[in-house]
């Protein structure tokens, strides 16, 4: 048990480090740049209507005070962490005066739900079929899956999502291609609303599953085809152990270990894919928010989305790491 404790402690230190360095990086990337958030905001406001020079000077003072850009960098950095700890990164510019954090928290559940559901489907289906394909190497149907996986796996998330959009938007319009739920349904815990949400999630989820499937399928197939040549598997077969028991208890159990490590390392990439997919299908998650913020020159919102993304991905990796000892007993035994 103590070794499990140390394992968790080490992972927790890494989690803290990831969040600390990631969030610091976002701060310094944005603050060391010559572009001032105050001037960007002023430029946007002054473009929309004309103001007297005095009014602009007033606004500049208020905005400088708001962003604190007149203070030394180190002090800004400390203030940034204090504000972040309080969950307040200032008001968003594109949805003024809603706090940026509120917008992020509204978008976060959409992204998390999409990410978790599609990752679970991809991971389970890919590993199960991959294991079968590695064990029954002459099965034609499983070989066909292999070809599909090889062809789909290298294609960028964007292209797959875009092809689905064309297919279901122009060629065969049966599924909703835009938004998180239908316009005529009021958000709430009603059956109508949830049905609408599920329908709208199909295409984004399917495009994530299609791209992700190959990684797990090909990886698992290669691992299993190596494990089945091990002596203990031959021994179990000769001893007359049931095939399903060999598969579940001996082959998959051993081949799963690197796959779970892979899952932890893969979450960041999948998260990036989710952001892009959301953008294609106009899904109301973090991705769409981030792109809107960038094009709106919304400093606070960009910072809020980046910090929350890094934190969320770090926590997700931490959770997967905690599951690791359940699959690999050696971590506990050492």
């Amino acid at each position, binding site marked *: 048990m103590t070794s499990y404790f140390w394992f968790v402690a080490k992972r927790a230190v890494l989690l803290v480090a990831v969040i600390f360095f990631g969030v610091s990086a976002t701060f310094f990337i944005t603050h060391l740049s010559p572009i001032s958030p105050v001037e960007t905001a002023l430029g946007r406001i002054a473009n929309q209507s004309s103001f007297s020079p005095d009014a602009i000077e007033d606004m500049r003072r208020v905005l400088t005070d708001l962003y604190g850009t007149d203070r030394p960098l180190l002090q800004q950095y400390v203030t940034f962490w204090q504000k972040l700890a309080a969950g307040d990164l200032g008001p968003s510019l594109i949805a003024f005066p809603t706090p940026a954090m509120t917008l992020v928290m509204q978008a976060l559940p959409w992204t998390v739900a999409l990410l978790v559901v599609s990752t679970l489907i991809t991971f389970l289906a890919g590993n199960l079929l991959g294991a079968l394909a590695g064990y029954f190497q002459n099965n034609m149907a499983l070989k066909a899956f292999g070809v599909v996986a090889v062809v789909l796996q290298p294609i*960028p*998330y964007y292209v797959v999502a875009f092809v689905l959009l064309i297919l279901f938007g122009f060629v065969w319009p049966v599924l909703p291609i835009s938004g998180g739920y239908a316009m005529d349904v009021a958000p709430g815990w009603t059956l109508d609303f949830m049905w609408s949400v599920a329908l709208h999630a199909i295409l984004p989820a399917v495009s994530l599953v299609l791209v992700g499937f190959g990684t797990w399928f090909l990886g698992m197939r290669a691992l299993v085809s190596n494990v089945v040549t091990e002596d203990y598997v031959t021994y179990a077969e000769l001893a007359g152990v049931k095939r399903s028991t060999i598969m579940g208890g001996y082959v998959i159990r051993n081949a799963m270990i690197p796959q779970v490590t892979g899952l932890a*390392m893969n979450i*960041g990439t999948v998260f990036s894919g989710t952001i892009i997919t959301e953008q294609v299908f106009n899904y109301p998650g973090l991705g769409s928010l981030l792109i809107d913020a960038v094009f709106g020159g919304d400093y606070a919102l960009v910072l809020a989305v*980046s910090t929350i993304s890094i934190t969320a991905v770090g926590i997700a990796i931490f959770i997967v790491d905690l599951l690791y000892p359940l699959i690999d007993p050696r971590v506990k035994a050492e």
Partner: protein
Amino acid sequence: MFAVLRDLVRYNNEFAIGLVLVAAIGIFALASLFSPVDPNLIFTTIPDQPPSAEFWFGTNSRGQDMFWQLSEAFRNSLVFGLTVACISRIIAITVGLLSGYLGGWIDRVLMFVNDIFVAIPIFPVLVLFYFVLRSDMNTVTLALIMACLGWAYDARLIRSVALGLKHREFTRHAVFAGMSTRKILLQEHLPFVMPIVFATFMNNMLWSIGLEVTLAVLGLTDINTPTIGTVLYWANSHSAMVVGVWWWIVIPVVLTALTFLGLFLLAVSTNEYIDPRSRLRRMGV
């Protein structure tokens, strides 16, 4: 080296297909060196012409010949991928070999940094860089940034091989013979990790070109340099699918898919070649 290639082509269909695809795309991209039109100019020809004998890939709504446009785009994208892959390989090899050979606290520090790089989602960071740099963001800057972000996973792979090499007899001989650490790593250990470097090189190109496509399609790169992504960006911004200029979208998407498939097959088959068990199985020994 040549014998390895010959064996791969002879015994590994995937490698052969991958090689043909990548070579075809490479020739297509190199054709842009002899382009009769400047691909950076717009309205040099009649807009919206479907593919024909004169315009093989049609022309787009910006009055560009899609054949030469795509040729230039693929060259830029491939050069971009090669740049990122080369620079990030250098970082990955340095970190991996040093970490594996030296061990101790250097190893721990390097792998800690490595774990952080693996865990940070790269796409939001790249978007952040665009947000800050805006019009200063060009292909070279983007390549440098992505190279600095894309080495971590492969460094760990190289380290795992280097760890095994450290305790081999020849390493001990080299140490006793008075070879410097730099020489041991470069002359003795580097050849052993080269197969992994090749396989990950292809994967890294896939990753970087894929990310560039994504960023460009969203308009988050220099949209005036023709690349695979910016071609799609302009097609989208002219609603090519809606107005019926389908070749503007379909041809780039198909060519991109072929490029990615080719690179991926090369990566997979080299990976398989590294594992002697599967290599022998394929040769039927």
